[in-house]
């Protein structure tokens, strides 16, 4: 590439640190190695972490309709760029389309299904039968009645009408409910109502900060 003397200094002495390549840029071509990767476009959006009530600021980066990164917003007064382990993992809860083939895969127990890329995130019920060592995909139509039956039978078998002092308690201590930090107030209210109605006493919605 030849740069002629006259054209060489045809730049403003301004913007860049020492030089602003005016005419030079006409010659600069995108290197083939880079061009081969293909130019991508992204957009960054500021948001609030959807987990607990801290309200940490996050920057969500999306490229080609896929969330490629979630990180703490360094300019946010609450968290100043930091995120807890749940906040860092929010990228995994973005919704993506999953192929049928992936959905029907039987996953080995112990595989890290919670840290897979979005396109492989858990999107259907996985069931491990008692004594089995494999997770198998189950439809909601099969799963919901099964859950209902288990709750009903466990509740019936463990039901306590009175405690050891003869006080009426009407409860079961064989079932516990665990919520998640992502639940909002309304969801917590409904869950509390439902589980108390069932007679549960061990109800935990994990909303501590």
């Amino acid at each position: 590439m030849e740069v002629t003397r006259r054209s060489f200094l045809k730049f403003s002495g301004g913007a860049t640190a020492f030089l602003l390549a005016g005419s030079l840029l006409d010659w600069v071509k995108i290197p083939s190695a880079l061009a081969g990767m293909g130019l991508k476009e992204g957009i960054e959006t500021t948001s609030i972490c959807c987990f607990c009530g801290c309200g940490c600021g996050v920057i969500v980066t999306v490229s080609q309709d896929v969330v490629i990164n979630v990180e703490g917003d360094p300019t946010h007064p609450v968290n100043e760029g930091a995120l807890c382990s749940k906040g860092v993992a929010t990228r995994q809860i973005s919704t993506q389309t999953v192929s049928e083939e992936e959905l029907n895969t039987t996953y080995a127990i112990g595989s890290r299904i919670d840290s897979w890329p979005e396109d492989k995130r858990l999107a259907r019920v996985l069931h491990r039968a008692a004594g089995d060592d494999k997770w198998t995909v189950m439809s909601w139509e099969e799963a919901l009645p099964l859950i209902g039956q288990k709750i009903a039978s466990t509740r019936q078998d463990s039901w306590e009408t009175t405690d050891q002092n003869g006080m009426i308690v009407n409860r079961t201590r064989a079932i516990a409910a665990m919520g998640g930090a992502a639940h909002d107030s309304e969801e917590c209210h409904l869950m509390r109502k439902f589980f108390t109605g069932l007679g549960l006493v061990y109800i935990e919605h994990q909303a501590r900060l």
Partner: protein
Amino acid sequence: MKNSSEPQWWREDLKRLRSVEYIPETYINFFESIFSAHYRAKDHLVKETVYPSLGRKDVREMLAERVPFIHFDRMSIGPLREHLREHFREICSIIGKCEDPGRIENFAGSENCRDLEDLIRKTLSYDPDCLREISQKTGIDGSTLEFVALALARPLFELAAEDMKAMLAEYPWWQNYCPACGGTPFIARIRREDGMRMLRCSLCAVEWKFARVKCPFCNNEEQRSLRFFYYHEASPYRLYICDRCKRYIKCVDERKIDQTRTVDLAIEDMITLCFDALGRQKGYLSPSSLSEVVTPGIKARQKNKE
């Protein structure tokens, strides 16, 4: 011989720069000469008091008013005149190797120190009529005059801001002009430690904090009109664009660079020239005229006076 103001990673980075296939050798040599002259000038100037020392309290008061605290008129140029003249000759000699040697030589011989001060002052206060007059008198075109004036001014401003650099990097300034001299940013980096976007001043090399999702030129915060281009997720380079003012700024994400390497944004600016070409190709511009480099600070000062 190595100049003491020269950062220790500079020579290594220069080798890296030479390996970039699309930057002409002539251009890199020119860049190296200008930088070496810059470091030499800093070495000479550092022995003198460039700027009257400002108390941290005074500086903080000015910053709170959103007024840059360094002004060329307050610089003690008197004892620096000989160094300034020497630096000027060196700059002219470098330029003369590339362009119109005869005219540049005449220019180098004709300007006396007071004229040089005047040239810098006029350039920094963006007085186009005056610059045109100097251009007609010397036969040197306007862009070369601006280049010379800014090359002379940069070591002075860098030294004047030196003591405050660390403080300014943590100060919640958030404006789109430099807190020290009022200059415009030319490149950004995402800081390794906390993901903060740091803008770097094109005049005094100070870095300051700026929002990640905001245009550093027109302050646009409408997030749908702020996008970026990139080639690979693992690459540290991004080209942030604003669809409102049609400007772009290159950004280096330090978190994607080997921790042992110090990121020198002046070098990165050269390495990423292809992103400048890309920006232009897509119809976006970086602040390219002198008025854009110096006017944000001028406006801030004027506003404060009112």
